[in-house]
């Protein structure tokens, strides 16, 4: 790891925050990891107890504590609930940062983070995936799934992420050209794995008279680096992304909840000369569903989607960006849709970035619970607005042998427009 350039907040800076946990234990009622494991170390109260021990010198910051720090989704559900108003998500990220200096980050996580840091490596990934798709090996592997048991489920999960709902098509605008300067931040999945949502965002914006530019040199948003405590990488990615954006921008549109949530963190992680710009950009970042819901967009009269649909709230959208009504409002405006609210719609899907790789068993248990709630609505489609959640939802649905498909609301609108133009 490189020498650190900046003074990030470390555990000592949170001494008072950690100490003021009253140990009331209310976090147990919302913590998905506690519900899956029943362990006191899994819930925020337990982590604050450990961190308080580390801060006052009663505990050594060893690998065992690092392991317990892994047991957090960063879903922020306990923050809404905490009588003392302590942000576990922020403190645990800082603690992981400190732990990483002492205990290292682990081979698998390091490998994943390194990939996200390099557009070149991601580009290689894309070539590989395109090859996989064009040769239709995925179709062949579907046949093999039955014989492969557990590994088969992973192949199904992998293939499910590649299925493209929407191919790009130039649509006829129905509204006059808008003057707004819009930058679209598509994120890694759109760029390298599956561009269906990106196609939809561009099509829906164009149809409604908005033009969005995508700067060429965007990198990964850095969310995984931040939550893993790799602050150095996060700040490099943050600075690069901020530098790509012209000063006169009106909106930065994102379709992935995680990619949207990082802009709020950027100001704390960039060099002094970029702080002001970072703060301004944080205020201009908007999720595509909110952007559309706030405007009178075009809903064709002669196109409908006769499906039962439910919606899953990504943590990074509901609790980090306070967007939860808007995607539902968009869905409810689509003709023919039977919208059904699921139980615990805003409980984490279990994927949580690298959590699904480092804690596969707990992650799958949480995803399975989510999937059951989706299945109980008898929906044909579950909508969400996050690349990470798409993995969590697929993971759970595949485990339950369900064929419910996953869409971003914006993909459904794009589909309406395609039907409309036929």
């Amino acid at each position, binding site marked *: 790891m490189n020498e650190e350039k900046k003074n990030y907040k470390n555990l000592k800076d949170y001494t008072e925050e950690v*100490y003021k946990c*009253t140990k*009331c*234990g*209310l976090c147990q009622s919302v913590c998905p990891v506690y519900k899956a494991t029943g362990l006191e*170390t899994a819930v925020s109260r337990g982590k604050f107890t450990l961190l308080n021990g580390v801060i006052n010198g009663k*505990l050594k910051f060893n690998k065992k504590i690092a392991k*317990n720090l892994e047991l957090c989704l960063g879903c922020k559900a306990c923050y809404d609930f905490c009588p003392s*108003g302590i942000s576990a998500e922020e403190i645990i990220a800082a603690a992981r940062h400190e732990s990483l200096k002492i205990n290292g980050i682990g081979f698998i996580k390091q490998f994943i983070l390194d990939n996200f840091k390099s557009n070149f490596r991601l580009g290689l990934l894309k070539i590989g995936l395109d090859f996989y798709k064009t040769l239709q090996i995925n179709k062949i592997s579907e046949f093999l799934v039955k014989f492969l048991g557990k590994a088969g489920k992973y192949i199904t999960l992998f293939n499910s992420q590649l299925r493209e709902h929407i191919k790009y098509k130039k649509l006829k605008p129905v509204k006059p050209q808008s003057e707004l300067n819009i930058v679209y931040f598509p994120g890694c999945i759109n760029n390298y794995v599956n561009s269906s949502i990106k196609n939809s965002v561009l099509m829906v914006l164009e149809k409604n008279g908005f033009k969005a530019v995508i700067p060429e040199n965007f990198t990964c948003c850095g969310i995984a680096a931040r939550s893993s405590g790799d602050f150095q990488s996060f700040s490099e990615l943050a600075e690069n992304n901020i530098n790509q954006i012209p000063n006169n921008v009106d909106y930065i549109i994102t379709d992935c909840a995680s990619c949207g949530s990082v802009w709020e963190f950027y100001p704390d992680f960039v060099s002094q000369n970029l702080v002001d710009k970072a703060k301004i950009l944080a205020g201009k970042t908007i999720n595509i569903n909110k952007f559309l819901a706030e405007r009178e967009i075009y809903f064709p009269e002669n196109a409908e989607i006769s499906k039962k649909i439910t919606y899953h709230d990504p943590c990074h959208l509901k609790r980090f960006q306070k967007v939860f009504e808007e995607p539902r409002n968009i869905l409810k405006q689509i003709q023919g849709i039977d919208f059904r609210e699921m139980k615990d719609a805003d409980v984490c899907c279990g994927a949580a970035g690298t959590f699904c790789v480092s804690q596969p068993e707990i992650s799958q248990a949480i995803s399975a619970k989510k999937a059951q709630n989706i299945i109980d609505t008898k929906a044909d489609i579950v909508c969400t607005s996050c690349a990470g959640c798409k993995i969590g939802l697929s993971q759970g649905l595949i485990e339950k042998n369900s064929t419910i498909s996953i869409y971003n609301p914006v993909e459904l609108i794009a589909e309406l427009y395609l039907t409309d133009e036929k």
Partner: protein
Amino acid sequence: MLSKKLQFKSKKMPKFKSNINDKIINSLKAILGNQNVLTDYEDRYVYAYDATAIGEDLYLPDIVVLPENKEQICEIARIANENKIPIVTRAAGTNLVGGCIPLKGGIILHLSKMNKILNIDKDNLICTAQPGVAVGQLQQEVENVGLFYPPDPASLKVSTIGGSIAQSSGGPRGFKYGTTKDYVLGLEIVLSDGTLLKTGGTTVKNVTGYNLTQLFVGSEGTLGIIVEATLKLIPKPEEQQVMLAYFESMNQAAETITNIISAKITPATLDIMDKKTMETIENFHHTGLPTDMEAVLVIETDGFKESVKIQTRQIIDICNKFGAKNIKVSQNQQEADELWFARRSAFGAVARLRPNVLTEDAVVPRDKIPEFISKTREIFDKYNLTVCIMGHAGDGNIHPNVSLDLRNKEEAENFEKAAEELFDAAIELGGSLSGEHGIGMLKSGFMKKALDEASIKYMKEIKKLFDPKDILNPGKIFHE
């Protein structure tokens, strides 16, 4: 040289506080599976606490086990009893008197995996649950079928059936509906020697021999381990209405309470908060409480629609007659929730004032409430401590919430002195040490103040009868 010496020394340090050893740990692993037995220092460290603010003291358990069924608990008890190893039972760990703190090390029995509702019987109005079920979850599930489980400790979202029976918890609805003790029909208990005891039954009427069920309610884990409970349910009231009534003096509020009760009206809740509490809530949550009033009463009526209407009207008349400056009445569920939000935010608001918060719990006869509240204020003022006074006025149950920083030695000592004076004041007024939190480790030193010698003697005899080797939650209730 020096480091060698230190190494030698550390080797001689006893590994465990209790009689536990590696052989016992292995047999526990054989019973429970490796994943349900925690021995790492870091894992045990988080079980050294419950919701009680005890400062920097550390009472580390030797081992933490997570049983999945009652048979496993029988075997654990048998091993613990044979080897004289303490067992401290715990579920959500929301105890406020240090009840779950393992004073003498030993085994923490964490019941988080025994969290299933086993049966809801709509015809007989009963349900059966494992001890780790959260009270709030049980309430929700029975309400879904039109039934009602009234006990409502403030922590009900997490606090459990087992814990609330062990502590005989109450809550705001105690005034009309009674507390946990009034809803326990039967228990399954693992005794200290591993015997599974079944008490009571599934009927509301039952006078077959001594009432052993009630002996275990409120026994704070010192007589046995509750592993299953059969609870009484009642039909869910058709409607609820909440009102807030503000007063310029504590006496007016108190007079209002007395007159509501003597008018033979029984609201579900009759809670009170003082000026400092209102100020603190407004400071953090902006719920629209006035900060220039001395007291607010939170009153909830429930029952059939017509009856709620009549009760509310009568209460409004009484409030007006005794000087209420303003009265707010909820017109729908959303407004009711908003009014309750103010009351429920009280603890959180106090928690934000200073790093630590200690919720005290004392009880006095209803008519002594104004006297007790002013005495409480006087005591804590004398010791320079910030106190927000709230409580269930209908039950004479007052919770002074003290906001402080226990790292400050002087404040911590002052708190102890003030707490003792507070209990003296409660007892002098004809009250007692605890309304609903229990005794645990924090109040055991005051038992002699509240009970006569014979009571304590027989309580200790009972303890000896059920737990001759003193392995069940040792050091609690009785001072050594």
